[in-house]
């Protein structure tokens, strides 16, 4: 009863007992945060327009210059969507900003005060971001596919449908690539906690460095490049995977490995560092 004597006869306050910090609550919170920023909408829409725009332009050009008597370029119906690989860059940056924005503005303090175990916030962010990206880009990639099919109807690339296993796999591959790169950006943002630093790291180290590395005179470097975080997804969106560095199975495995490694590191650092 020592505590009771300490407060003597003052009022005893009992806070509301019907509130609970939950994983579902954290996801709702991240959902609200994501959609309440104009930049989220802008980047999502720009990246979608970018990918769809290139697909439409390429299809129109292909259709206009189509010569039925000539051999094709070895293209498959899904290949005209390659612009979505560039959408992946936008989404990776958006993923990084989804968490670095909290550090830049200081809102991370309210976030982590509300969820002092911290890692739940990271998982909620990853889940919500992946769900948004997969949802939005499934719709956008699908719509773009049907749009390009309408343009390509008179050519050898026309008449494709989702019941074609390769087409379906490639379309799924584009969505998975974008989601993977977005998650990679998010993990990177959680590790580096700085907007400019994360974007520079992503573009410099994840995207460009592997390309430069292949020019080095050592074969083992060139051999290692396909396994780097930004390169392992390449096979997913290829219609013909015969010449790919990694098989589809290897690609998925390495994507899993990099997600586990980067998010694992992000989670450990999140627990250890002061906010």
């Amino acid at each position, binding site marked *: 009863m020592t505590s009771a004597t300490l407060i003597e006869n*003052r009022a005893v306050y009992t*806070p509301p007992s019907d*509130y609970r910090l939950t994983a579902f609550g954290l996801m709702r919170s991240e959902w609200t*945060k994501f959609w309440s920023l104009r930049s989220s909408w802008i980047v999502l829409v720009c990246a979608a327009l970018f990918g769809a725009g290139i697909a439409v332009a390429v299809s129109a050009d292909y259709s206009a210059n189509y010569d039925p008597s000539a051999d094709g370029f070895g293209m498959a119906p899904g290949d005209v969507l390659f612009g979505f690989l560039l959408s992946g860059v936008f989404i990776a940056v958006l993923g990084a900003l989804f968490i670095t924005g909290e550090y830049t503005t200081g809102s991370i303090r309210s976030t982590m005060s509300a*969820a002092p*175990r911290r890692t739940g916030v990271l998982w909620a962010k990853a889940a919500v971001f992946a769900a948004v990206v997969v949802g939005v880009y499934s719709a956008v990639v699908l719509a773009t596919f049907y749009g390009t099919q309408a343009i390509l109807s008179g050519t050898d690339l026309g008449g494709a449908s989702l019941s074609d296993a390769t087409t379906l796999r490639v379309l799924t591959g584009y969505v998975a690539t974008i989601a993977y790169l977005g998650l990679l950006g998010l993990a990177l943002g959680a590790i580096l906690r700085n907007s400019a630093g994360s974007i520079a790291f992503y573009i410099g180290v994840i995207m460009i460095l592997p390309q430069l590395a292949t020019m080095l005179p050592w074969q083992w470097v060139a051999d290692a490049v396909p396994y780097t975080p930004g390169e392992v997804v390449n096979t997913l969106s290829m219609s013909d995977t015969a010449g790919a560095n990694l098989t589809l199975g290897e690609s998925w495995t390495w994507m899993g490995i990099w997600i586990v490694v980067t998010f694992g590191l992000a989670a450990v650092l999140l627990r250890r560092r002061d906010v």
Partner: protein
Amino acid sequence: MEPGGGGRNVVSMIEIEHLTKRYGKKTAVDDLSFTVKPGAVTGFLGPNGAGKSTTMRTIVGLDAPTSGTVRVGGQRYDRFRAPLTEVGALLEAKSVHAGRSAYKHLLALAHTHGIPKRRVSEVIDMVGLSDVAGKRVGGFSLGMGQRLGIAVALLGDPAVLILDEPVNGLDPDGVRWIRQLLKRLAAEGRTVFLSSHLMSELAQTAEHLVVIGQGRLLADTTVDDFVESRGGGAVKVVSPNAAALAERLQGPGVSITSPESGVLEVRGTGSAFIGETAAAHGLVLHELHTQRASLEDVFMEITADSVEYQQSKEGVAA
């Protein structure tokens, strides 16, 4: 306590024991121990850089102690099932994404704990931001940002409130409002802990006082005792008949010193008694006033050493 360790004790006291926090070589908080009790406003006083914010950050788990423990209601903050209902904190003004509206910021935080929208609107009204709740926080003044921070702290209707320099940027109306609010919250039995580097600010609001300098505890006392213990309440008398007056004033509990000829400093009795005594004996007074050692003076005096030490140390390092 409820099973599972996530429940709460009845008394939400803040208990800080031997807290030390270092950032690299710099020691921000040095073996600090004190408790903050419910039902009263406790002021946390210290010069800038004394370690107030660091201490407050460790209470809500933003910073991990280098050593020592910080507990709320007998538990580590990260063990609570509903942290926002235990501790509400205002740590830095405008800790909000500039592109988000005040309403959405509060709503996102509310969602984490399943706090209903009704409560979000309630705290927005309470802090007087109803008209601008839908606007982007980027356009907020410092005072509005501060009000939003207070709304965040109040969101979970918490048992403990921690406010770091809450009056910064508030207009006089806002200052009066927050003083009344904090007193009311404390009267409800909550623990209210607010920091300031301005003694006068805390004197108006706080009952209890924790004073730190250079990360070390300098005083842990009531505001009244704090002033009293530092020579408050002396009456200065200037009189050509000082010696005669001193003789007449002698009595139990009265102490009289004479810092210079013709000047008396009288403790243990009031200026009214001194004036009346002088008049009764026909003694001339040139000056008679109560030297209310202001809290500011006391504070400056008590922290002077630590501040100087810090400056000289920096001088050596530079």
